[in-house]
């Protein structure tokens, strides 16, 4: 169970960071064929996601080894986090699937109804999930790790946007 939660969180974090990188790279060149730039954005986002999440990973490692915290405390907080972020992620992934499946005339509807509004909602969903997870856990170390992890998720796109300037 703990493994499933951790794997789900790591996978979600990586995918989210990659898409943050993609968004940060869109509309930068004006080229019609921007697949190269898109792939670069995905890579940069994922790489930066790994880098900025290192404080959270370090905090967790220290808490588990030096602080004697049990893995179950992290699993429980992660599960709570996932109950909020999971449905959001599933809807966004479904939106991407719909975007891919629709005829070109209707593709923008997936953006207008799901992808656009959910991009706007993303920071609020992450904040809400973090607040609930932090309130749920009695362990300060877990709370600190959750806050650091949330901060890293929200940092990727602004950092990349600044670097593009």
């Amino acid at each position, binding site marked *: 169970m703990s493994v499933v939660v951790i794997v789900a969180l790591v996978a979600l974090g990586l995918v989210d960071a990659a898409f943050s990188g993609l968004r940060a790279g869109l509309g930068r060149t*004006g*080229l019609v064929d921007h697949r190269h730039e898109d792939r670069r954005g995905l890579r940069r986002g994922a790489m930066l996601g790994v880098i900025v999440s290192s404080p959270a990973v370090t905090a967790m490692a220290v808490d588990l080894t030096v602080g004697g915290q049990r893995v179950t405390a992290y699993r429980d907080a992660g599960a709570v986090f996932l109950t909020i972020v999971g449905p959001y992620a599933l809807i966004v992934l479904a939106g991407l699937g719909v975007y891919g499946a629709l005829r070109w*005339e209707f593709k923008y509807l997936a953006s207008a109804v799901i992808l656009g509004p959910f991009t706007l909602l993303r920071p609020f969903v992450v904040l809400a999930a973090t607040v609930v997870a932090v309130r749920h856990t009695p362990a300060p170390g877990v709370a600190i790790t959750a806050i650091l992890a949330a901060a890293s998720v929200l940092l990727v796109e602004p950092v990349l946007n600044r670097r593009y300037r």
Partner: protein
Amino acid sequence: MPVMSAEAVSVLEMRGQHRAAKILRQVPTTGAELATDAVDELGLKVHRELSRLGEELQLGRRVASMVGALLQQLGLGTVTPVRLVDVGCGLGQVLRSIAASGELPPYLELVGVDMNPVLSAEAARLARVENLDVRFVTGNAFEPGLAIGDGPRTVVLSTGLLHHLAADQLVAFFQAQAELRVAAFAHWDIAPCVWSTLGAWVFHQARMRQPVSRHDGVLSARRAHSADVLVAAAEQGAPGYVVDVREGSRWHPRALDVLRPIVGVRG
């Protein structure tokens, strides 16, 4: 043309556009004037983001689909080239994407025109980089010979241009095309309604990074002209054309009407 920063800010404040005034105050100045380089750079950034938005709205394919139908309706042969002129083309995303997709017949010449030399130069550079057969020129698109040489073999289009014109400028806009005897025109713009304003806000907040883009996106939807205003202006300015706005109802817009065209075909 030099623009005095304080003067421009004051005009915006007088019009109640406090947010726009605040954005303008952030633009670098050279002395009292807005710094030309900074304005040009900002213009390019905004138009690159707009190109990406246009791509998301599938503008190139929408235009290609409509122009393809118009070419059939007009029965223009393939012996002499037919020209497709994009007025106020910005970075020329629409024409460049049409050229890249090859969705329209090869006898169609693609020409983009913009008043802003920085934008048309960048559009030309992007076309060269991607080896696309599109020509871009700077100036007034309706100046005879600049982009439109043979009116009856020319189709004029624009996307997102009409809301930049005041209602009293629309008649002259359509009249200029009628005087050049263009075969047809198709101008896409936002249908003003609560959905488009809300959609513009969401899209520009989610997709645009520049504060000026986010601000102007919503204003564009709010200042867009209704179908009645557009048709009245086109009928007055271009009386020899059969004109209609291809959109759904005001309160239940058709799913495809993200931007709808006013189409005029020479009778």
